[in-house]
């Protein structure tokens, strides 16, 4: 949240400029002779540059001006947009310490889940990527990416050699012994439990309800929900499989 406010102000400012110049134009027209040349829209960041270019593409009449230091491909438009989306508190799911978008990484660039969550196929616990893993790629990125607050935060953590306190979304009680590796072995794909993460900018629990015959419905990650899947796939229903 903290990092988003300045960007908001930036946008407001731009809009303000735009409106003001519009009015100015109108007034000039009113007074007839010697119409003043329209003030062009000036980009103040790469992301904004992308935004303006897009608008320009829509109506060519628009006067825009992109300072050269903002006229570059990185961060890509997609990055800017998903970064924005991951910061939006009004979509489901908590805002994470870093606006990391699974949609961007897993969806757009199709990074394999196991690339970051390594060891999931070997270990009961799904690995949460070490900060190093993130830096593995992001340290190679051009510095212009730093205009994204998320990248900046990441680098701060890295410099402070601190781990990132992610907020856990998919949580099982401590008395449940879940084994990721066995489920991968069995060919269950991540989405079965975690939902279509590759389409989420902000990861959140996708509600999924199974209606038992004769019984109360069971929600995702509740016991009945697991049992249902186990029954359908002929997996073990022995209590000791998950509870000991």
């Amino acid at each position: 949240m903290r990092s988003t406010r300045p960007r908001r102000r930036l946008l407001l400012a731009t809009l303000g400029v735009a409106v003001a110049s519009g009015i100015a134009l109108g007034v000039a027209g009113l007074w007839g002779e010697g119409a003043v040349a329209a003030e062009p829209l000036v980009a103040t960041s790469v992301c904004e540059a992308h935004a303006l270019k897009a608008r320009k593409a829509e109506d060519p009449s628009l006067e825009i001006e992109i300072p050269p230091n903002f006229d570059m491909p990185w961060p890509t438009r997609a990055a800017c947009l998903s970064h924005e989306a991951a910061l939006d508190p009004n979509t489901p799911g908590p805002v994470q310490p870093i606006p990391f978008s699974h949609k961007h990484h897993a969806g757009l660039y199709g990074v394999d889940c196991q690339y970051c969550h390594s060891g999931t196929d070997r270990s009961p616990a799904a690995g949460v990527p070490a900060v190093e893993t993130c830096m593995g790629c992001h340290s190679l990125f051009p510095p212009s990416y730093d205009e994204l607050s998320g990248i900046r935060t990441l680098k701060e953590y890295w410099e402070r050699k601190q781990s990132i306190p992610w907020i856990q979304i998919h949580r099982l009680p401590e008395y449940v012994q879940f084994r990721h590796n066995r489920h991968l072995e069995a060919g269950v794909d991540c989405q079965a439990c975690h939902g279509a993460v590759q389409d989420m900018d902000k990861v959140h629990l996708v509600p999924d309800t199974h209606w038992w015959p004769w019984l109360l419905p069971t929600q995702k990650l509740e016991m009945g929900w697991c049992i249902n899947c186990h029954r359908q796939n002929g997996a073990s229903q022995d209590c000791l499989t998950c509870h000991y």
Partner: protein
Amino acid sequence: MPELDRRDFLKLVGVGAGGAAAAGCSDHVEKLIPYVVQPEVITPGMPVFYASTCRECPAACGLHVRTREGRPIKLEGNPDHPVNRGALCGRGQASIGRTYHPDRFRKPQRRGAAGALEDVSWKEATAALAAKIAERPGGTWVLGGATGPSLSDLIDRFVGAVGAGGRLVYEPLSHDALREASRAVFGAAGLPIFDLSGADYVVDLGADCFETWLSPIEHQRQVLEARDLASAEGRAARMVYVGPRLSMTAGNADEWLPAKAGSEGLVALALANVALARRQAAGQPVGGDAGLLAALLAPYTPEKVAEPTGVDAAALRRVGEQLALAKRPVALPPGPGLASSRAVAASAAALILDAVLGAVGRSVGLPPETPATPEPANLAALEALVAAMNAGRVSVLLIHDSNPVYSLPPQLGFRDALAKVGLVVAFASGPDETTELAGLVLPDHTPLESWGDASSRPGVRGVVQPTIRPLFDTQAFGDVLLDTARAMGDAVGAKLPQGSFRGVVEASWGGSFDAVLARGGSFAPAPLRGGAVQAGAAKLAFRVPELVGEGEHALYAPPSPLLYDGRGAALPWLQETPDPVTKISWQSWLELSHASAEALGVEAGDVVAIETPAGRAEAIAFPRGGIRDDVVALAVGQGHSVGLYASHQNDGRPGEARGASAIALLPSVRDEAGGRAWLVSKARITRTGGHARLALMQKSDNKRGRQLGDAVALAALEGDAHASGHAGPHEVRRPFAAAADATDGSAYRWGMTIDVDKCTGCSACTIACSIENNIPTVGEEQVVRSRLMSWLRIERWIGDGTQELRAGRPPYDDHEQLGRIDVRNSPMLCQQCGAAPCEPVCPVLATYHAPEGLNGMIYNRCIGTRYCSNNCPYKVRRFNWFDYAIHNWPDPMPLMLNPDVTVRCQGVMEKCTFCVQRIDLARQTAKNEGRPIADGEVTPACAQTCPSHAIVFGNLRDEGSAAVRTAEAGGVRAYHALHTLNTRPSISYLARVIRDPSSRIDEDGGHAEAGHHANAMTPSQEGTA
């Protein structure tokens, strides 16, 4: 320490549910804390093993440390290590707790003007120390426990470099007498090495070689392998115990000669006398100049010795002859507890007996010429140090790896002398009596955090490597020495190795250090050195010692099997595990014979006062049959006044001593050569009128003839056992086919075979189980109400018991008799019954029969009606009366919890499930490799750590599995506990074998049982008794 960066990853991070500190019924894992840099060797959720070495006692067993996410969670024996071969004793198991002990010092501290400790930084601490030493280098002394060669070496170099006054190695149980005796008899000072493998006749002259003496695990393994019934030699093997008290070790012998305390030497000589004659007649070598020996032994005929020792001459003669005829006999000298003012002579006598029996060089090895570490100081040297301190000649005293204020006899005056020392520096990881008096406390790493090594014997050297990044702001003693030296200037610093102590350790190993780390050390035991009896031996005066003080009882202070010399008192598991003999925990009790008790008019639980010239203490009286009338026994180890568990602090009464310290009662007396003597004083026992509720976990050793801890006479086995080595044609006497009790489809039916004949009662399994399964300790008050939580207990039965009934409220039931041994130690744990009585009565299906035959217990389903426990005839279920998980694991203890096992919350029943988490792990690997679980792939914590391999776990549906084969090899010994109840247990017990001590050995060495043992019953007879 730059080198440590390689191990930076050993930091405390729980991943997901990795930190299973939350109680089983609340789920409080809300943040995911990933690594900053994830080490290549760590996969969150998977265990990583490191080889290291146990530092609890000088035996120095090899360890495999199981870590999860950089936290050690379980210690197991290193199978490659020649001393323990994968086993580990209770003390070793519990030692993991030192690292997570709530008492630990968080920072270095200095005693301020007010006398209170205040934090300082390492920098100023070392600076201050350096300055203080520089004032008067000669006044600097180092006093500390036995260390590994490289640290010991470093200390010596430090002493040399700063020109310190000197260094004393201090071990309370230092075996001074034995070291001297070895010099006197063989001319080689130091600790002889005892290798009991294959020994077919062991005479333990009060060594208690299964408990604390030299290398207990090794001795247990060797003796019990030697008496394995599978071989003729095994059936022939015998063990005789000589001593005033039926100790745990004695309980495993075949014959007990209850000699007067301190007279073991004479017994040894008498045996030697008989054996010598017999061997000479047979023309066998006698390990020395026959004439010399004959002259030396002549006066000690059994008849003469009978009176002073109180042992029947005939018995002495018989044992002597059996010894002479045995193939590999060996005698073990008296242990520290029996070291009297005549201890050197007594130990020498034992060594002479060994020599006569030709055991020297075969079972007994002379000490190496050049010991890896200096010999410990004897009492004389310590007295000299105290004198120097009193004279103000000691300005700086560095105390490491020891607690002399507690473990030195008070009469020595060490405590007062400390006050006269300019600066006392204590290197300890936690508070104890010594740190209380130290001016500077420089917290040391625990062994799990530090580098080092340890040498069990020539050729065997284990490495100690850190398996966790230091939890607190502590430093290894070695590094502090280096830093101090450097702080004293380059002149001094240059004389010591550069870099850190790790460098010193690494440098001390030739070749690849990584290979060493992988294996856990270098294991090439040197062959035993032989030797002959020297003429000097004749100069020794063999006499029964005279004791100081008055009173009609000799005060015998044996080391505690669990608390050792008292260092174990800080660990709750060792405090809470019932004593293998009396089954008392947390308290200190005075053992006295029933006759003495009647004479004093005391009953079990009455508080009695013990008075000796050294002082007075109070303890709880515990009358028993297994002790001489002229002796009272008070185990060493209790009586600490500092520490959360060691003292009564946890009752909110900080600093009140828990129990009585035997050491405080012992006058400071030397043996012939200035060694420390323990059996020195008489004690006057008086009743105080007080009474205490005993924390007694087994109130009766009378099994009433019920089918628990059976026994069979060897005679009854002979024919059958001859016929078959192992799986023979005869089928096992198996009341029920437990293998059937799993679903038809299942390939497995987990089961166990427990050999009662091999169980020594050492209780290592109990502690291993507690640590593997996150079982909390509950404290004294709860144990008094029998609310101990351990899933596995060792039941101790004496004989088949009687069905006599006592009216009223018997305090406890005791059937021991002087000179008679029929102890059956029978581990009792959940039998995983096929027709389990506990299952049908649970209203909510919290306990049920799993497809693979386990009796599952689902904690989060349990609502605590406790019906299952009522219906369990074995009484192996435990109930969480309080939220032990929250109350009994203060920080940082939760870090040592096993993430694979749910922590149980208040109001929930719990019990053993054969370490189902281990079964599950094995199943996962097997599945991934697309194969069934192999035999021996799963080993529950108890079976894994058992020094004598009494517990064998396996799949009953696999006829070839070790468990089944062992049960079948057991032949008629196999039985099920309480089988008349038709619970179809999956555990087969093998009955204890009673080897008739009076069995004659004929010339060819084979044994023929003389008569049927009075106590022997076959299980079948017994069930209906």
